[in-house]
């Protein structure tokens, strides 16, 4: 096997004392950066670029350091999702849905460890996918024209109904709100600013991170302020227990099929440029929910599979996103865009010839991903005990710290005080939405995916001179539409039947879950 021989050469490159040390440092820093709200993988990598240059690292060691940070941040994002209900970065959004309820049930340790294992599974198989399939996978990316992308994003929204809320109308409202927010900024297809009120800060649209940190972190702080000192709060906040740290073998086995399915979905989402890790974790979660929990009984209430699915999905997507970056020179996500810039400044041109022109860099990098991934698993499981101590911190100390980190994190990214005001606005909005029991996740998803969905629709229609027929113009597009429609309609019928059955069962008094 040619590939395996190349991979072995890659391990020779990667397994030097210096490179292992760099991977270790990168993994550790990445995990911390991922866990802090505001700082995500792309900022984490960007922050370390000058460090890599200052140390005078060669291309391979520099890439090893930076991709370790990337993988580390993908791991780390889940920590604050589970412990605080505040996603550390965009892809960790879905992990809140079941991770936080698990923590509230005193299973924080299990949730963290299980999501660590799921992250490992996702990243491990995705790296193998990168090794074995990268050249072929490029062809998959080439099957997706604007029409197919539009169908894919519609599929994502069609499966949205199942997420988070018991009230579908509120879910739909939240998604519509998110889509509306996505429209803010200069419209690339006409060059005209929309909903910017002449405010130049809004021309680039709303930064997802600002929205996420505002909606989740700040609104949490506001809710705390509202209930501060009341007896109600003491009653509402049961003493959180950490629970066991290592999940039982049975639980891991129970979640294994979930992890594998989500890995495949996440990886494919990662390979498609413009879809990325957020879509990967989102689709993994919603499809998994449809597969194993179509009646909506356990997902969203602390189902371990609801933690395993998005984590396997987003880490697989992180690996998948490296495929178009290395093989096409097209970044599949914000972080890979930064990595791409690094490659270019190291005198390496990613693209179709990278594998033949710079095999040592590519295979050294891939070997480093394997090493980094193992390190992260080894590092994360023992650290679970440490992370969970966060839960012991009383809210009156924790909440100011959360507020501080939010402000510093957001200001650190853009250096703009306007973004801080936007964040506060989102915080107030998030607080109001919570009062009204409107789920926050669809708002973010609408903002995150809405723009891409819209521009792809318009690209497709413009290319075909205003003819909407192009949207169903290829077998792939038709297949995606079919899945979207089935995914949308089926739960309405099946869900109805299941609910009736459940009701009967409930009346018979046999339902204890």
């Amino acid at each position: 096997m040619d590939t395996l021989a190349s991979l072995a050469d890659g391990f020779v490159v990667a397994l030097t004392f210096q490179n292992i040390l760099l991977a270790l440092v990168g993994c550790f820093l990445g995990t911390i950066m991922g866990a802090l709200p505001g700082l995500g993988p792309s900022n984490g990598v960007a922050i370390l670029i000058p460090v890599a240059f200052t140390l005078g690292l060669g291309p391979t060691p520099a890439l090893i350091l930076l991709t370790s940070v990337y993988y580390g941040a993908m791991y780390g994002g889940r920590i604050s999702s589970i412990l605080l209900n505040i996603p550390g970065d965009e892809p960790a959004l879905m992990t809140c849905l079941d991770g936080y309820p698990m923590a509230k049930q005193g299973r924080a340790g299990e949730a963290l460890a299980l999501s660590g294992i799921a992250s490992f599974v996702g990243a491990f198989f995705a790296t193998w996918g990168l090794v074995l399939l990268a050249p072929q996978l490029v062809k998959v990316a080439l099957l997706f024209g604007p029409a197919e992308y539009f169908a894919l994003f519609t599929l994502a929204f069609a499966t949205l109904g199942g997420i988070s809320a018991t009230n579908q109308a509120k879910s739909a409202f939240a998604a519509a709100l998110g889509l509306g927010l996505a429209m803010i900024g200069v419209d690339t297809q006409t060059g005209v600013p929309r909903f910017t009120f002449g405010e130049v800060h809004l021309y680039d649209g709303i930064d997802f991170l600002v929205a996420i940190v505002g909606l989740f972190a700040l609104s949490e702080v506001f809710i705390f302020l509202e209930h501060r000192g009341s007896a109600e709060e003491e009653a509402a906040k049961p003493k959180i227990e950490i629970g066991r740290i290592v999940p039982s073998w049975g639980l891991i086995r129970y979640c294994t099929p979930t992890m594998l399915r989500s890995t495949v979905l996440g990886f494919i989402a990662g390979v498609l440029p413009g879809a990325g890790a957020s879509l990967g974790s989102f689709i993994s979660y919603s499809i998994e929910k449809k597969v194993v929990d179509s009646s909506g009984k356990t997902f969203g209430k602390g189902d371990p599979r609801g933690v395993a699915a998005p984590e396997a999905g987003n880490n697989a997507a992180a690996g998948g996103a490296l495929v178009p970056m290395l093989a096409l020179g097209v970044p599949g996500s914000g972080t890979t865009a930064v990595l791409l810039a690094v490659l270019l400044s190291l005198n390496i041109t990613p693209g179709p010839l990278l594998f033949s022109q710079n095999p040592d860099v590519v295979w050294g990098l891939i070997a480093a991903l394997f090493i980094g991934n193992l390190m992260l698993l080894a590092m994360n499981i023992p650290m679970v005990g440490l992370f969970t101590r966060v839960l012991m911190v009383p809210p009156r100390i924790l909440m100011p710290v959360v507020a501080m980190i939010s402000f510093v994190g957001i200001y650190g990214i853009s250096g703009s005080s306007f973004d801080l005001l936007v964040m506060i606005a989102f915080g107030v909005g998030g607080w109001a939405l919570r009062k009204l029991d409107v789920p926050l996740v669809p708002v973010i998803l609408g903002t995150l995916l809405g723009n891409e969905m819209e521009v792809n629709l318009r690209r497709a229609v413009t290319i075909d001179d205003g003819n909407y027929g192009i949207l169903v113009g290829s077998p792939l597009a038709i297949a995606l539409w079919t899945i979207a429609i089935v995914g949308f309609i089926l739960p309405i019928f099946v869900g109805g039947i299941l609910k009736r059955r459940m009701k009967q069962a409930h009346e018979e008094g046999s339902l204890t879950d």
Partner: protein
Amino acid sequence: MTLTALRRGLTAAALIACAPLSALAQDFTPSNPECIAPANPGGGWDFTCRQVGKSLQDEGLIPSTMQVVNLSGGGGGVAFAEVVNKRNDDNDLIVAASSATATRLAQNAFPGNTMDQVRWLASVGADYGVIAVAKDSEINTLPKLMDKMKADPKSVAIGGGSAVGGWDHLKVLIAAQEAGIEDVRQVKYIAFAGGGEAVTQLLAGSLQAFTGDLSEAKGFVDSGDIKVLAVLAPERLGGEFADIPTAKEQGIDAIGANWRGFYAPGGMSDAAYDYWVDAIAKLYASDEWKQVMETNGLAPLDLHGAEFQAFVQESVNNITALSKEIGIIQ
């Protein structure tokens, strides 16, 4: 006695050593050199700041490390407004700019700001535009592509990495105008989030042609996946790109350079302005910078001081005229 003499001697030596340095510095040295990249990390402006900052320090042209600040938003407008409104007298500050900055200034996309509010320092190179098609396309020359567009504008969808009205779009319109296409608004341009995404869609068959910078297309040219019909440069580029014909030699006199350079606050003192112009000019002439340019596919564009100011003014005027014609601005 001897000690005093020695000390005197040393002082004199030190003075002599210092003399050329102070003459160079023209009575100004930045105590806290800072470069604003008006975008998130990873983009072209960010690269310009970081690479220039690093090279200036390597060459000893600035006394300390250049601090790079990312101030994103509004396609550079947030940084522009910040410099004009809050840091107008800052002598230590330079800001990365490119053709995109000139385009937005020309189209009044920075509300209330104009190019005279800042001082334009110097360019550090240019990335020339290319127009390309997929390798299996039946079109082999730029005039052929233009003829096809003239006959049926709907038959050619051209993709690029900038928004409608952005530089990638304008480049192809300049070429279309030169080729005699009367109503350039008919040209079917599809905007993508970056040049790479547009090339991918060219390979996927969604588009018939691609407009972008040479550096964006380089990897695909090397692999033979795309055919570059023309480079929009005044003359053929050197090195590995020498085979690519210019638009001009095919009878279409279109030039589209995505230049990279810097501006400084409008209230910067003349001493500081001269210092920065001089530092960047020296950097441009250094071997290290030649290496950087080669690595990144940057072509020569060596303008500084008043020359550069005039160059930016001219491109703003040209873009204003073109934008009016296609209806981007009234």
